[in-house]
């Protein structure tokens, strides 16, 4: 229900008034003026053989349709340790979701479905977490206390995540300044959502229970680019241990954003670090827009009227104009609602292509479980509804706005409460929320931001002491710091665009071995950062075989130009040895001179019809004929030069 297709005048006016500019043209001063602050929660799965609290194998995934059994749970809010119900908890209880878990025998056991208490924490995982805690410069705790963090969305069948603080108060050096680390925790991963429709949400339990670490920074990041840089740094740091998972979903970020006068909003499930700048930029402007809405509302009401506002908002069934409802909507399942004083605000800009009414629609989906589209409003540019008549029925005045919402009759009461509650929050400004990241840089309401009230000691687990000796043993084997690795890459003149891949895949040791074996640093860097990246992308897998392969190529006296071809084969091969790969690519030894002799003959065969318009057509054709034979025997650039010489001659 977005206005992006046909932006109305209200949307465009308010977009201008809020001062929205795209990130590409935004100057750093813009963020300073907004009071932009951002903090990160970077999640990284650890590479262990088994899950964190049970003996299931870690890292085996099933597709959403392959499962052996299903079970259903409902989540009820419980009291926190300090004796209060958590706000999110109560909201989610309202939604009354049937949570369905799909279990595959080989990836989940009775622990995963909360029918068996936890086994002692996987020590392999804990040691990796301590290693990362030390790299982050945090103070490692004396004793690990496993805590339950409530999640009522059902993403964990127990209703809570087992998590524990490993270290607090660290620091990472960005290019321009240090950024403080609040804490590092070790925790079990949650389920993967398969679908969420109406009152039924389905999860797959394969990822559940995988060990991961969460690195939390203070809100020290003052521009979107700093946020991205910090996320990369933390990612590289974890990867430098060589003991963490790579690939889709192995690393995920939650990003907290606030501006002056705004509120901390958590954007969850950021799948790619490259999404962070746009997401944070847009969130800053969403908050600015909500503050503008607040100012408008406050100018229209006195304090007393604001207190009394919800009593003035009233709903009625639009029975008289049933024939005008959107197709397929039953009049029994629709309600018209008058929102006093909201004129000009429903179409108010909040994010590119989105307006305040979307905030209402998002909440209807999440809280009242009503699928979208679930409402229409009186300020839509392309409305077909008889708003004049609806206004009359509702007894609305000019300064009011109206919405028509629809869904299952049983959900209507919650739906109306939800809309009224969200509108009331508009008087206060920016609600505390968790929002879901979308690829286009905007976000959707996910739930009310939980507070510390949802933390509970885990009564099923004993504390685990972390002794000096444990720490010292791990400290002795730490990899070098990320900034030292960055410096090394710069010193070797490795092309800039290779750095991220090399650090992300922990390939610095591989690069160093190549250089020690005599390879030119810049060439070796490009071999990893360009060639290997183009072959394997984000797919996980061991890449260290490359060192032996390159070494064998050099020892055998083969030309290095064959390496990219061998690497492409090697990546998909179970035994990437030189001889096997050479056989696969059909290599046979031939001297350069023998190749050179073939050039004149080929030139004669080259049909002028093929000459086309390129002056290099003949050279390219001959190269194409000889390339396969030349690879490994002759530098391709030499071959190319010979052809050019012959042509000139």
């Amino acid at each position, binding site marked *: 229900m977005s206005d992006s297709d046909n932006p109305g005048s209200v949307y465009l006016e308010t977009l201008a008034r809020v001062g929205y500019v795209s990130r590409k043209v935004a100057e750093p001063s813009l963020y300073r003026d907004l009071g932009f602050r951002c903090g990160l929660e970077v999640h990284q799965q650890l590479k262990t053989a088994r899950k964190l609290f049970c003996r299931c194998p870690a890292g085996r995934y099933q597709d959403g349709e392959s499962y052996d059994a299903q079970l259903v749970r409902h989540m009820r809010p419980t009291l926190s340790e300090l004796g209060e119900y958590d706000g999110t908890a109560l909201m989610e209880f309202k939604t009354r979701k049937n949570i369905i878990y799909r279990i595959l025998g080989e990836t989940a056991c009775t622990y995963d479905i909360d029918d068996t*208490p936890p086994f002692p924490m996987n020590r392999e995982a804990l040691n990796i977490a301590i290693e990362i805690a030390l790299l982050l410069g945090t103070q490692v705790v004396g004793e690990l206390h496993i*805590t339950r963090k409530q999640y009522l969305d059902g993403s964990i069948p127990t209703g809570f995540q087992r998590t524990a603080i490993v270290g607090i108060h660290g620091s990472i050096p960005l290019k321009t300044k240090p950024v403080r680390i609040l804490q590092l925790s070790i925790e079990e991963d949650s389920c993967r959502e398969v679908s969420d429709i109406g009152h039924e949400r389905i999860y797959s339990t394969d990822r559940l229970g995988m060990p991961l670490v969460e690195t939390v920074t203070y809100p020290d990041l003052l521009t979107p680019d700093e946020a991205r840089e910090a996320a990369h740094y933390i990612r590289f740091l974890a990867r430098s241990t060589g003991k963490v998972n790579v690939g889709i979903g192995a690393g995920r970020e939650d990003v907290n954003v606030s501006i002056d006068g705004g509120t901390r909003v958590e954007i969850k499930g950021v799948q790619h670090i490259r999404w962070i700048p746009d997401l944070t930029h847009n969130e800053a402007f969403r908050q600015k827009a909500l503050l503008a809405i607040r100012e408008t509302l406050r100018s229209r009401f006195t304090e007393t009227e604001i207190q009394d506002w919800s009593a003035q908002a009233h709903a009625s069934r639009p029975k008289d104009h049933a024939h005008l409802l959107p197709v397929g909507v039953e009049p029994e399942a629709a309600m018209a609602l008058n929102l006093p004083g909201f004129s000009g605000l429903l179409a108010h800009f909040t994010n590119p292509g989105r307006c305040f009414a979307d905030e209402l629609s998002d909440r209807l989906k999440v809280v009242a479980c009503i699928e979208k589209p679930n409402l229409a409003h009186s300020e839509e540019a392309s409305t077909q509804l008889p708003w004049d008549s609806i206004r009359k029925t509702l007894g609305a005045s000019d300064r009011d706005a109206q919405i028509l919402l629809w869904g299952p009759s049983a959900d209507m009461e919650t739906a109306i409460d939800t809309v009224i509650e969200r509108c009331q929050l508009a008087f206060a400004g920016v609600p505390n929320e968790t929002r879901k990241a979308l690829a286009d840089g905007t976000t959707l309401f996910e739930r009310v931001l939980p507070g510390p009230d949802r933390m509970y000691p885990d009564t099923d687990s004993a504390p685990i002491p972390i002794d000096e000796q444990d720490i010292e043993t791990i400290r002795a084997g730490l990899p070098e710091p990320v900034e030292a690795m960055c410096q090394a890459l710069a010193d070797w003149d490795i092309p800039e665009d290779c750095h991220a891949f090399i650090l992300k895949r922990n390939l610095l040791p591989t690069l160093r071995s190549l250089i020690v074996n005599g390879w030119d640093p810049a060439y070796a860097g490009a071999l990893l950062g360009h060639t290997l990246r183009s072959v394997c992308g984000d797919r996980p897998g061991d890449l260290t075989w490359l060192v032996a392969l390159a070494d064998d190529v050099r020892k055998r006296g083969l030309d290095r130009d064959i390496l990219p071809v061998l690497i492409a084969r090697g990546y998909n091969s179970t035994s990437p040895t030189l001889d096997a790969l050479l056989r696969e690519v059909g290599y046979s030894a031939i001297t350069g001179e023998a190749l050179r002799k073939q050039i004149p003959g080929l030139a004669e065969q080259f049909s002028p019809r093929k000459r086309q318009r390129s002056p290099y057509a003949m050279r390219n054709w001959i190269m194409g004929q000889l390339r396969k034979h030349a690879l490994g025997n002759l530098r391709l650039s030499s071959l190319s030069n010979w052809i050019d010489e012959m042509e000139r001659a």
Partner: protein
Amino acid sequence: MSDERTKGYRGESLETLEAFSFGVWDDVILTTTRGEFRGIILPRSEFDDSRHLVLKLSTGYNVGIDVRTITAVAIKGSKEAHYKIPEKEFPVSPDKPYVKLLGTGGTIASRLDYRTGAVIPAFSPGELYGAVPELADICNLSTEKLFGVFSENMGPHEYKTLARAIGQEIENGIDGIVVGHGTDTMHHTASALAFMVQNSPVPIVMVGSQRSSDRPSSDAALNLIHATTTAATSDIAEVMVCMFGPTSDEYGLLHRGTRVRKMHSSYRSTFRTIGDTPLATVTREGVVPLRSDYNPRRTDREVAILPTFEDRVTLLYYYPNMHPDIIDAIVDVGYKGIVIAGTGLGHVNKPVYPAIERATAAGVAIYMTVQTLWGYVHMFVYDTGRDLMAKGIIPTENMLPEVAYIKLGWALGQTDDLEKVKSLMLTPICGEITEREPHDGYLVFQGGMPEIEDFMKRVHK
């Protein structure tokens, strides 16, 4: 320093509290060799070591600090937590049935106990209403806490107290009774009540939870909803156990108190009717009987309360290579009854025969049950069985071992006359012995079988 200020701390950690003059609930900055840590000092579980302090950080996480690393302590304030389940007046509506919840302990509703890190029960109608508001739609609930013991500490004294309390409630006109109970020995108590409270005109429903109510996925609330629904509306006026049917939050099963057993150490669906089918299913919508041979609800108040128990009775789980001296020892210390859980159809090895002879000669009542749980004792099939019967062992048909133990204690509590005891033991009172075993009374599915896997995929576990 007062106990309140040092809850759970001892040894080195207690010395540290005293040395730096701080205590539980203080908001402190601890300077340690690993850095500064700020938070609130929490009580410590008595079972944890004496080397660490527990600190709650402002993020809500708890961490432990090794007291040997502490170099300085600065007290910044104090914040004591008061855990309280929000208590709301339980609404009374005269048109709804009246249900009494008798509490024995367990985790049907609970809150945290900092001292042990364990959960402690919450119980008043107001507390329960605060946690499970649906209860008010079902009945008018009143509660009485009879004792606060873990299930494993329930015994004859508690059985008798409970039976008398139930008798009193019935006499007072209650419409149904719920007994909150820890799950470990719920089936022992259920059978004790089945023998001690006979001819009840109203449902007596035992309920507990397999996951404590301090967790969002707890089965406690739904079990309580099911149990009160049963007590308020069910036509089945028997002692029943009401717990999850599947592990899913879908329906509860009502098991006859004398045929039920806890079958898994941690599953939600742990209670199973053995050798028969359950009495009924129960959901929020009500009770649906699965069979019709139950005692129906009545309006009279003619209940028989028989609160007796001889506690010099034991349950002996037979194993190969059992030596006779174990039985001699039981007799020597004065036991009056032994229930043996024998192998197969009800057997023990030959070396113990003389001990059995000595025991019966000493006037000890010996009864045979089967450790296979399912099936009848059949002592005529092999000579071994006949030998044993000749030596005085009495087979108990298909009575479950735990039920036979409870029943023998109950019977010996009434009389020393072993013939009368035998008559009590072998006359079924409420399903503890059934005349026949239905074909679907024994269903233990095996995973891996294609047809079972197919079935599992189609129903919710």
